[in-house]
């Protein structure tokens, strides 16, 4: 690595050093409490996957370039040069961490490994060594924001074709639109994943609740956040913020996508609208009697997998359980305390990398598979697209024999007309 590149990367590092980050980098006492907390280490037993080891790789670079002792006398502070080998180590650490933050719940100092890994990811992006497929997907999303006029008509036409399936789940009066789009003054903007499976059931529930809603032109998922690029993350988010402001909605509701929800909640705090997850909205409809569910649709024991970004990192624990109480009388908790739930092993962009990460995803989530098996359920419910894909893969790989379902689809299928 030449000196100019190193200087550029160190500048990126410096930009990340706010007070929280400095605290995280200076505080770890190596007490080891977080060791068993990471599902990757607990499943595979390799030291390089221990949470504290992951941040030590970043910390050594910090010591060398940003701490007085490291600069003068590198060997004492275990300072480490930023070079090609360091980049390889950073890659291994950062893209095998799902950002689930389970380790943070255990750490007595609340050290946020996911945040420290964001330095690693930023340096890798600066060195053009990130998984390029994630950047490609992020750039496609950004381009979409710039060229709405190019696809607006054809997308609306494509969405129109889904309306007959929405009406099958919830009948409507003649003249009503099953999937409204581009409605100025709507109360709620729903940001889906662009697939039919994400739009159809949710549309039926909105219509059943008599919601004044409109479907976003953009997909919720934020590939910029997966790759760890703050600039791309913001540009992808801006598409939705601008649409919400243009339509003057009061609420932006994010579909079953954990990362999209966390990013929107954290980065859109000062907006003139409220941000909700679809799970919170559905719980609200049930509470206020706007929808009624038929509990006889579901047979056998049921458990719920809390998506890390919605529960531990997004604060939504009670609502999915409240909804499930209306769908089954045999609900079983997976973990005695939901905040300690194991990650599914698919976050941080690993699922989006598809087949390339399948082997690692299966090996590193063995503890998750064991946890599911112990519940003895036949239905495994979740509220995140990434988790759903990963849990399905685990179901096949470990022959768990469960039916993996989206909470939203279950609500839509149990609607009482």
């Amino acid at each position, binding site marked *: 690595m030449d000196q100019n590149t190193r200087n550029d990367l160190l500048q990126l590092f410096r930009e990340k050093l706010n007070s929280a980050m400095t605290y995280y980098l200076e505080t770890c006492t190596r007490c080891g409490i977080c060791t068993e907390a990471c599902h990757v280490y607990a499943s595979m037993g390799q030291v390089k996957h221990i949470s504290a080891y992951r941040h030590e790789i970043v910390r050594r670079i910090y010591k060398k370039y940003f701490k007085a002792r490291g600069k003068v006398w590198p060997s004492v502070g275990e300072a480490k040069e930023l070079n090609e080998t360091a980049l390889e180590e950073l890659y291994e650490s950062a893209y095998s961490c799902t950002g689930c933050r389970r380790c943070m719940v255990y750490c007595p100092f609340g050290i946020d490994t996911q945040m420290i890994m964001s330095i690693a990811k930023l340096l890798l992006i600066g060195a053009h060594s990130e998984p390029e497929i994630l950047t*490609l997907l992020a750039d*496609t*999303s950004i381009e979409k924001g710039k060229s709405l006029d*190019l696809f607006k008509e054809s*997308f609306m036409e494509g969405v129109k*074709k889904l309306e007959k399936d929405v009406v099958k789940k919830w009948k409507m009066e003649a003249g009503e639109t099953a999937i409204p789009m581009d409605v100025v003054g709507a109360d709620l903007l729903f940001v889906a*994943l*662009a*697939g*039919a499976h994400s739009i159809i059931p949710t549309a039926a529930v909105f219509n059943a609740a008599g919601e004044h809603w409109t479907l976003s032109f953009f997909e919720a998922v934020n590939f910029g956040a997966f790759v760890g690029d703050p600039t791309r993350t913001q540009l992808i988010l801006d598409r939705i913020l601008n649409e919400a402001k243009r339509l003057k909605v009061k609420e932006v509701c994010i579909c079953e996508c954990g990362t999209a929800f966390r990013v929107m909640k954290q980065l859109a705090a000062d907006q003139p609208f409220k941000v909700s997850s679809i799970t919170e909205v559905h719980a609200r409809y049930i509470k206020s009697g706007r929808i009624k569910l038929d509990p006889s649709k579901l047979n056998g024991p049921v458990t719920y997998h809390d998506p890390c970004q919605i529960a531990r990192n997004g604060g939504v624990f009670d609502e999915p359980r409240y909804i499930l109480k209306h769908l089954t009388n045999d609900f079983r908790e997976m973990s005695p305390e939901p905040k300690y739930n194991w990650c599914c092993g698919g976050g941080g962009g690993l699922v989006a990398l598809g087949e390339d990460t399948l082997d690692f995803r299966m090996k590193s989530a063995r503890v998750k598979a064991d946890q599911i098996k112990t519940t003895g359920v036949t239905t495994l419910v979740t509220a995140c697209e990434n988790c759903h894909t990963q849990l399905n893969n685990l179901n096949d790989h470990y022959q768990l024999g469960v039916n993996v379902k989206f909470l939203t689809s279950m609500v839509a299928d149990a609607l009482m007309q």
Partner: protein
Amino acid sequence: MNEEIKVDKTLDLKGLPCPMPILKTSRGIKEVEIGQVIEVLSTDPGSLADFPSWTRSSGNELLKTDQSGEVTKFYIKRLV
């Protein structure tokens, strides 16, 4: 229907949700030569927004979109 477009490879991505059509297409297009054309079949409505944006951001050319049936067909010329 497409007498004017000569297709060199077809990718059948029916039933795959977002982002799979884009992921598979960005890999699949590498299997034809620059200047050749792939036909992509998709049932995901998101593809109608994704493909025009992906071809622009990746530097390839979307020659035509045919959404007359249940399955949408995209004709993409590899330029890079």
